């Protein structure tokens, strides 16, 4: 993670500012003199506050462990749960290893089709995180674009966009996502419904989250657009689009990063909830939510591990991302320091 714009501006540029009068002149001798990006990151306030908070370090470790597992799932998972040939019904409903009937072959047990739960959870996290990242990216791009437009253009465009945002904000995001998801699935024929479930989900979650980005970016743009560098850019004849994207945008991205981190947890929760409710990812490529939904049917017959383990994985993932987001919000907010 690189240091965002706000705090790094007051950190280590001082030695590069030029030789002070009286000080021995040191010629800039190659890369050894300039602190590299890693050294600069290690010297920043953000890194300092990171090393002060053990809970954040644990959360960061867990989060990146989840990312790594999700990325490498096809390589490190003991079994490919989507490969029907590797499944054996004789292995079905095995309990986890520490119970009386458990075996090391299936550390967290198996489900009713003989799928290894550990592998299913690895692949499930992969899908959950993919939906999470894609929908956050979608919401962020949409929200930033509308926020920039709204703040920079002002006038009637601004009030139309912000009124829509106001109205949408009065309804809970999950209700909006559920509604969009339900409607789009209704419009699609049955065959396509399963194939496009991923993208339908991404769009519906993204559309229910854009407001926050738009509002934040808009309020930052309102502050930024009256600053001198924007006036200077306008003076040398740059187009509005260039000013917006090349000059204003980089200066309003700090808060967006915080919202995106917190929203990642929310998006993962929303995906899991929709999949649990049966309108999200279909069981052929289960996400964590779908796994919990499947396992829920076995809760009463004693096979608790089919639902509890994916549930715990989801809980730990969401909790760590949330902790990381909370920390990032505090670390990037100079008022709280």
């Amino acid at each position: 993670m690189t240091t965002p714009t706000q705090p790094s501006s007051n950190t280590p540029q001082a030695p590069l500012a030029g030789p002070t009068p009286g000080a021995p002149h040191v010629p800039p001798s190659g890369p050894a003199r300039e602190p590299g990006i890693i050294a600069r990151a290690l010297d920043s306030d953000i890194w300092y506050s990171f090393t002060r908070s053990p809970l954040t370090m644990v959360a960061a470790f867990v989060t990146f462990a989840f990312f790594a597992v999700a990325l490498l799932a096809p390589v490190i998972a003991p079994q490919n749960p989507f490969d029907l040939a590797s499944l054996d019904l004789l292995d079905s409903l095995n309990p986890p290893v520490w119970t009386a009937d458990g075996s090391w072959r299936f550390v967290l047990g198996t489900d009713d089709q003989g799928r290894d739960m550990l592998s299913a959870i690895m692949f499930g996290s992969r899908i959950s995180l993919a939906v999470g990242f894609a929908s956050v990216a979608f919401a962020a791009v949409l929200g930033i674009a509308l926020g920039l437009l709204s703040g920079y253009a002002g006038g009637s465009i601004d009030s139309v966009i912000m009124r829509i945002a106001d109205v949408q904000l009065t309804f809970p995001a999950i209700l909006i996502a559920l509604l969009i998801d339900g409607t789009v699935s209704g419009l699609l024929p049955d065959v396509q419904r399963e194939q496009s479930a991923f993208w339908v989900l991404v769009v519906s979650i993204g559309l229910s989250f854009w407001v926050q980005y738009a509002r934040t970016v808009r309020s930052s743009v309102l502050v930024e657009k009256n600053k001198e560098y924007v006036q200077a850019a306008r003076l040398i004849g740059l187009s509005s689009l260039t000013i917006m994207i090349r000059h204003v945008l980089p200066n309003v991205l700090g808060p967006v990063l915080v919202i995106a981190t917190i929203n990642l947890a929310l998006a993962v929760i929303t995906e899991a909830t929709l999949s649990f409710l049966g309108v999200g990812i279909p069981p052929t490529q289960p996400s964590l939510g779908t796994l919990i939904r499947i396992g829920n049917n076995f809760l009463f017959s004693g096979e608790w591990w089919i639902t509890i383990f994916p549930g715990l994985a989801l809980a730990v993932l969401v909790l760590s991302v949330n902790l990381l987001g909370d920390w990032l919000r505090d670390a990037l907010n100079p008022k709280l320091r």
Partner: protein
Amino acid sequence: MLAFVVRRLLQSIIVMFAVGLIAFLLFRYVGDPVNQMVGIETTPAEREALRERLGLNDHIIVQFWRFISSAAQFDFGTSYQFKQPVAGMILDRLPATLELSIMSALFALFVGVPMGVYTGLNRQSWLSKVFLAVSLIGISLPTFLIGILLIFVFAVQLQVLPSFGRGETVEVLGWSTGLLTISGLKALILPSITLGLFQMTLIMRLVRSEMLEVLRTDYIKFARARGLKASAINFGHALKNTLVPVITITGLQLGSVIAFAIITETVFQWPGMGLLFLQSVQEVDIPIMAAYLLLIAFLFVVINLIVDLLYVTVDPRIRIDTSQKM
């Protein structure tokens, strides 16, 4: 003041109109209403007759007007799935959802406020830290997962509470209530906790931060200087002043509680509106979806309106702000 009320009212009407338009477009264009109502063996001529009888050949504006005016009279058409009037189905399930929502709001209020006061007053005690940790988990965990974990512990392992349904219900003046039977009350416990946990943590954190803020003010210092008892200061002076935002938030959250009831009702197979809505989403039963959408939007708009108006009456500062806004 009057101008503010009128403008706010106008805004609410516009929102309802927009939601009505969305509901209408859903109703009219997602799937063909005629195809949903008839069987495969119906001839094209019969279909055309039905189409004419339903008024689907009229001008779109006329149709929209008919849709809105019949919705205003609580007529939402017939469910595709159940072949029953939607309004009656929703009314049948309204008591279950309302009882669940109100119970969970009460739970959130009566557990959240004391916890917030305690953590605000004893910042360093270990119990406060436990409460805060629990609240972090309550905010992080998705509702359905909390429900499943509660079912796993209390219904599967300990077997002390039921895991689904409303238990026995009694009919009181046409309202089927579960509050008057033992099994009905027992069945309410787990769903209410599941639904209310998020609001509870929200209220607890709110009360805590408000308490911390209020305890720093001059009038509290003055009350201490006057030698008042700690309990009189904490509850008589401090808590009283934290309650205005708490009541506002609780009011505003009532809408989300009803929306989140969809999830809780699914986990506990609670026969309320939310479960009905979810079934209609899965089956693409548009009349029920449209009706539920309108109903929820109406609830939200009314709640927001009431809270806004209360705010203006309670806090004179806002009156000045809003006259300059927009």
